[in-house]
């Protein structure tokens, strides 16, 4: 059934304070809407339960990408187009720029926002693997509580559930400016363009003289929510690169993920492919570090 627009409200306070005041007055009554690439799909299909929407698209306080001494701050209202075109994001957070470039079509990239992608909470979303690998923090804001910070790895609490309170809004995402020697991002879907992921891996590592000092790994579509692979990171830390480490890391990864069967893929396929992506990342590092690839 097509939705009837007369049954819905949409207000545009025009300022962050105005939006937060509305959310605080009656927590849970108003649903923020940014680019509408998720909520308007539900609306069009007559499935949008929220009846009162508050427009946050284009709010100045949610916009902009700024570079500090230690972090890069990305406003929650920054669109995929802005992300992929930003010279700072391209240079310092290339995995995020790439993820933005393969999220949906150009028209959807012009509307979809980073904050919306996180709040929507899909385990298959495109920006989370990069944000997990980069150890992003989410900045939340409410009228009564002001700002609070949550590590992005702790933002999702279950399938499409997050720590965001009803009176809160995602204000920004902050990413520490760390030096990594290697990065990797690959999405496996039904086809090359505009497919929702079956599995996606975002990964960074710092390697010195054939040894992994540190690695960070984020996976999409292998759990109820985007998943940071802490056990695998631990298995890699301080270890010498080589075929043995590839096997150890694969075993650690397969031990910590619990993918599901759904319409897009099977748990068995996802487990296998997640391991393959990790192996590809490690073999790329070995090839780049020189002569360490055993040829497999």
């Amino acid at each position, binding site marked *: 059934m097509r*939705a009837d*627009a*007369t049954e*819905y*409200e*949409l*207000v*545009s306070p025009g300022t962050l304070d105005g939006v937060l005041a509305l959310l605080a007055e009656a927590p849970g009554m108003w649903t923020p*809407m940014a*680019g*509408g*690439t998720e909520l*308007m*799909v539900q*609306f*069009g*299909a007559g499935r949008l339960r929220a009846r009162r*929407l508050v*427009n946050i*698209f284009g709010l100045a306080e949610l916009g902009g990408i700024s570079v500090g001494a230690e972090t890069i701050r990305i406003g929650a209202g920054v669109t995929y*187009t802005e992300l992929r075109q930003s010279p700072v994001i391209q240079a310092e957070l290339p995995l995020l720029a790439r993820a933005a470039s393969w999220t*949906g*079509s*150009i*028209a*959807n990239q*012009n*509307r979809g926002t980073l904050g919306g992608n996180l709040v929507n909470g899909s385990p298959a979303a495109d920006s989370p693997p990069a944000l997990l690998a980069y150890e992003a923090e989410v900045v939340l804001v409410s009228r009564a509580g002001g700002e609070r910070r949550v590590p992005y790895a702790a933002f999702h609490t279950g399938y499409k559930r997050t720590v965001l309170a009803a009176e809160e809004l995602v204000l920004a995402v902050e990413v520490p400016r760390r030096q990594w020697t290697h990065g990797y991002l690959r999405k496996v879907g039904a086809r090359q*363009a*505009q497919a929702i992921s079956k599995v996606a891996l975002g990964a960074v590592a710092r390697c010195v003289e054939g040894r992994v000092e540190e690695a960070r790994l984020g996976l999409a579509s292998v759990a109820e929510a985007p998943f940071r692979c802490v056990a695998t990171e631990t298995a890699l830390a301080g270890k010498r690169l080589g075929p043995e480490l590839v096997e150890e890391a694969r075993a650690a990864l397969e031990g910590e993920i619990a993918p599901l069967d759904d319409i897009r893929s099977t748990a068995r396929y996802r487990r296998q492919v997640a391991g393959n992506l990790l192996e590809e990342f490690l073999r790329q590092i070995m090839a780049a570090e020189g002569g360490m690839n055993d040829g497999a």
Partner: protein
Amino acid sequence: MTRLMMTVNGELRAVEAPPMTRLLDVLRLYLGLTGTKEGCGEGECGACSVIVNGLLVNSCLIPVGQVAGATICTVEGLGTPEQMHPIQASFLKHGGAQCGICTPGMMMAAVHLLEREPHPSLVQIQEALAGNLCRCTGYQKIFDAVRLAYAAGGEE
């Protein structure tokens, strides 16, 4: 009901509609601009593509309450039969339209690309039009029409 103003194809228009009314419906039903088509209604097919404040969007995914004061260009704003936009002339010349449902959206996506890159590569064209589906699968001629829109004399 909300009363709002927007500039559509260069003309200031007043619209009175529930703010969650899709821009697509405002264009077609309120303003009579039926060149913009509805395909999937869920942002997958691009048939409803228009340009809002210089950016390509799917008008089925935009509530009119979000475009108060905006500048909107639809296919009707590109040109006229007598004075066609180069992309329209190129679609005509190179057989870029078959059944025609995807054509307005294809041309809006093409214009969005050509304004940034007048001489795009095939890969750039393919990416720019990837959000626009052609049910006749006439993609090759559409790519040709976009590639040759600003070519000298419209030929290779």
